[in-house]
């Protein structure tokens, strides 16, 4: 069997993309499981595809139906949504700022 598809470097890149700060003890386990899964997935690329086959989204064909009419209908209690915020201020969801890398103008 060839080298792991998901190398430690690629794994780190994926966790960064996924916004996950993993602890060391998890990393090797997850990386190993991912590579096992990919081994199982490998056969997908070996299945001869039927010539006329089109990719499906839901399996069955969903017939079209008319879209929603343009009527506004307010949700009665928006306050309940903001009330779920881990932190809020002035009725807004509060988070720390993005790390700025604003450099000087040339």
């Amino acid at each position, binding site marked *: 069997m060839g080298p792991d598809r998901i190398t430690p470097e690629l794994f780190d890149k994926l966790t960064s*993309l996924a*916004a996950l700060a993993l602890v060391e003890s998890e990393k090797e386990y997850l990386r190993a499981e991912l590579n096992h899964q990919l081994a199982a997935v490998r056969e997908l690329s070996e299945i001869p595809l039927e010539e006329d086959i089109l990719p499906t*989204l*839901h399996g069955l064909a*969903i017939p*079209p*139906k*008319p*879209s*929603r*009419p*343009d*009527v*506004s*209908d*307010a*949700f009665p209690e*928006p306050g309940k*949504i*903001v009330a779920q915020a881990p932190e809020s*201020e*002035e*009725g*807004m*969801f*509060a*988070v*720390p*700022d*993005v790390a700025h*890398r*604003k*450099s*000087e*103008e*040339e």
Partner: protein
Amino acid sequence: MKTYEVVIGLETHIQLNTHSKIFCSCKADSWGAEPNSNICPVCSGLPGVLPVLNAEAVKKGALLAAAMHAQINPKSEFDRKNYFYPDLPKGYQITQFDEPIGKGGYMDLTLPDGHQRRVRIHKLHLEEDAGKTKISAGMRLVDFNRCGVPLVEMVTEPDLRTGEEAALYLTRLRALLRWIGVSEADMEKGHLRCDANVSVREMGSQTLNPKTEIKNLNSIDAVRQAIQEESRRQIAVMEAGGRVESYTLDWDADTSRLTKMRSKETEADYRYFREPDLLPVLLSAEEIAAIEHSLPELPLEREERFERDYHLSAYDAEILTSERSLSDYFEEALQRYGGEAKIVSNWMINDLARLMNDLGKSASELNLRPADLAELLHLLDGGKINAPTAKTVLRRVEETGKTPTAIVEEEGLGLMDDLAALRQLVAQVLKENPAEVASFRAGKESLSGWFLGQVMRRSGGKADPRQARAILLELLAAE
């Protein structure tokens, strides 16, 4: 010395003026509302929610595509664009990636020097808006009121060449959006947002060099200025033998400065895939035909027609096609008047425009209707009133809502139509001013204006100035 060419593309986001958001029933317009008061589980990305497409957003998007001479695709699809940002509650934006609602399209601009510039459209698709963030004491505060407002994203090819052209494009676009009724297109309110992509190359070159992206452009002026600023900067870099690097730049309108925000990173991997919670957007041939037919005559076409058929100047034609209700008003007034277009045009561009401005009304909101204007002009033509009186009548119609004829009668504003009485009046004026008569006869011909003024005053403004002048000259010449 090398000459350089600036290459500019514009990316615009247009908020559609539907009643509700694109995927939920919250209001589309929440300007001025308290933060997070116009939200629901769907647009705030709660667990378990699903999007449901607003039919009107599709129609308006298709109408805009038609107005931009783009092809309306009978089938388009929604996709997810995945990334993390606090103003994006689901962690993905529902947009159209590879099967958008519009394909192709262009806008033709007539540049000040008379040249035509065709600005081609590279992308035209529907998507949902994100929320707004505000920085406060090192924290980001997020308001979802705007999440889910329907947007059309329209990206041009890099066909523009100056900041001035970019400003012209946006001006035309704004007028068009309002004209066809798909957006209020107020840049200050964020209905129309624009990012500019700028690069430079040697004149004659066909390749595209790395470009910078300018963000935070909140007005047409800002677009013009920022592009001009960036063009200067890039040309200076090239002339110094340097290389322009791809950056995202932020425009500060207060200081008129561009600052580097971050390197334009290799495009984040958005992992686009077909949105499984939505069905394909389908428009039948009949629906597409209906949308295309519902497209009104567009401003540019009408402008050309006004010049061609009514022989209006380019200047006049442009003003009379800058706004839909004004334009429709003009044409109706002209049709009812039946006379020279230039006359109607003058009245509209001067007196009516002033009136509308004073009152803060659009043409469709005036009490003075096109029929009234036509009637007024007929009264003028028929010598029933003179020009100064007509201006007064105009305002009186607007104030009272009565017809010009009624006002002239009720207020006794009609011109004297008794020539004999006029002759008497003129003779009287001459008799009372022998010194001036003598001066005139001695050669001071400019006094005729003074005499006319006296006659007009004596008549309470009701004399027809042309007739009065003719009689004056006749009587002054005699003896």
